């Protein structure tokens, strides 16, 4: 196998994620609709929505500063850059040498910062409200996110995402321990909060009293809106990929070559499908939390992650 081809396969991974992102979103929406006995739009609908928005004229508030135009690009590029740090099918990531999971956390914080700025910049009351809520949630989510990722990092002895994922896959059935399960649940809860999913924020509503994420991006339109939408889809897919590869220790290819990538693609698809199904079921079976209960929710995620960390690394808990 030529090294060039292997490198190309590794570099293709983030683009696979980018292409998959709208599909994942579409599947979640479709599944939710089916579970609610609705017909729902087709799974490809997000692609058409993005294309439609890309072609539309962009309207920007007169009071807005240049930041407003800059926000979508910053948000999208930071999220996309984060994808370069994550292994998808192969036990390597394109920029794994340059940044680990800590960098990942900060790359995910960057779009949030810019979007909050954008929400304030437009000068609408809703935008400001959305920004302040988003910052409150993220300040609670971040420690939990870091603790959950560290749970996976402890076994590998490295904070690199690719190393952690391949260490989990290498010790497959023996790795199944309480630490892994606790880390999985914690990261899942954090993903719900970070991606604006149901118990924390309802992605389908525009009811002004409850919306968080939607309130922030209310003033964006046209191409800006398309980019922001795409980056939030990408973020959801990224979280699901992390869950699938760090905490479900099967299917990741053991060597870096395109042939095994094809094989692991099948298993990755299954894992992703399973996670999407879980997400839709969870979203369908919970009611939205009051905003002031969100820190409690994330506190539970944090405690679970800490317990996972304890049992995985420092203490090897249990009988």
């Amino acid at each position, binding site marked *: 196998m030529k090294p060039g081809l292997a490198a190309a396969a590794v570099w293709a991974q983030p683009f696979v994620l980018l292409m998959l992102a709208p599909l994942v979103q579409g599947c979640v929406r479709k599944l939710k609709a089916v579970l609610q006995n609705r017909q729902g739009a087709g799974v490809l609908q997000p692609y058409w929505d993005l294309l439609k928005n890309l072609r539309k004229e962009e309207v920007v508030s007169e009071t807005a500063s240049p930041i407003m135009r800059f926000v979508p690009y910053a948000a999208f590029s930071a999220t996309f850059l984060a994808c370069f740090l994550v292994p998808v099918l192969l036990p390597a990531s394109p920029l794994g040498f340059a940044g680990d999971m800590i960098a990942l956390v900060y790359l995910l914080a960057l779009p949030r910062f810019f979007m909050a700025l954008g929400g304030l910049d437009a000068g609408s009351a809703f935008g400001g409200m959305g920004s302040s809520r988003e910052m409150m949630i993220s300040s609670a989510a971040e420690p939990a996110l870091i603790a959950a990722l560290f749970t996976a990092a402890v076994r590998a002895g490295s904070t690199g995402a690719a190393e952690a994922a391949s260490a989990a896959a290498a010790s497959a059935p023996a790795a199944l321990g*309480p630490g892994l399960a*606790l880390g999985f649940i914690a990261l899942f809860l954090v993903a719900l909060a970070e991606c604006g999913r149901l118990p924390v924020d309802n992605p389908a509503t525009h009811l002004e009293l409850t919306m968080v994420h939607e309130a922030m991006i209310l003033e964006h339109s046209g191409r800006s809106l398309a980019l922001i939408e795409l980056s939030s889809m990408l973020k959801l897919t990224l979280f699901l990929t992390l869950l699938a590869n760090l905490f479900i220790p099967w299917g990741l290819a053991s060597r870096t070559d395109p042939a095994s990538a094809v094989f692991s693609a099948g298993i990755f698809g299954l894992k992703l499908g399973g996670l999407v199904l879980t997400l839709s079921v969870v979203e369908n079976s919970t009611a939205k939390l009051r905003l002031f209960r969100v820190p409690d929710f994330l506190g*539970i995620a944090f405690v679970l992650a800490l317990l996972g960390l*304890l049992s995985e690394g420092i203490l090897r*808990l249990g*009988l």
Partner: protein
Amino acid sequence: MTNAPGWLYQAVSFLTALALVSAFAALSCRTLHLVIRAYAAQSVLLGLAALAVGLEPVRWHILALGLLTIVLKGGAIPWFLFKVMEDVKIRREAAPFIGYPASLLGGVGLALVSYAAVRSVMPESFTGRGLAMGLTLMLLGLWLMVGRKKAVTQAVGLLIVDNGIFVAALSTTFGMPMIVELGLLFDLLVCVTVIGVLIFRIQSSFASINTDNLSRLKG
């Protein structure tokens, strides 16, 4: 347990870790019936862990103990507590002494403390880990009792302390002799009954089961 197959070992460690999580669940729940459920779940998990421990090599007294634990601590005692709760018509823990996030974080701290304490006197082993786990559950039970006002929650805290002792006994010595274990279970049942009756009396004398009313005797 030393030469048991790996999956059994894994199952036991999984079950006890989930029991630990259920103790945290009890710490984080606001409604009393969820707290009682968390206790019931914990007892069932520990009963299953006992069954797994007794499987290889087969130890009949541990298997019987596991079954009894599931039936009594997972079924009968929670049922009785539910009945008490229904009769005194109290559902929520409105204003705890220690807030929910604080009690969760404090609980993690206690887990660390007990592991560190046991580690300092015992080498890392099956016994040491089990003892640490038992001590953690005991401390979490105490922490629940300290942080809450409702008499029912305090009773659940006491029961979690008892579960901690169960874990310690199971992992260090594979349980006490059968006759002693039966005596302990009987004691526990009587204790729960006594506490239930006392909760009725508190309710009828104070028209509330907040234990912060119980602070008149001083000096």
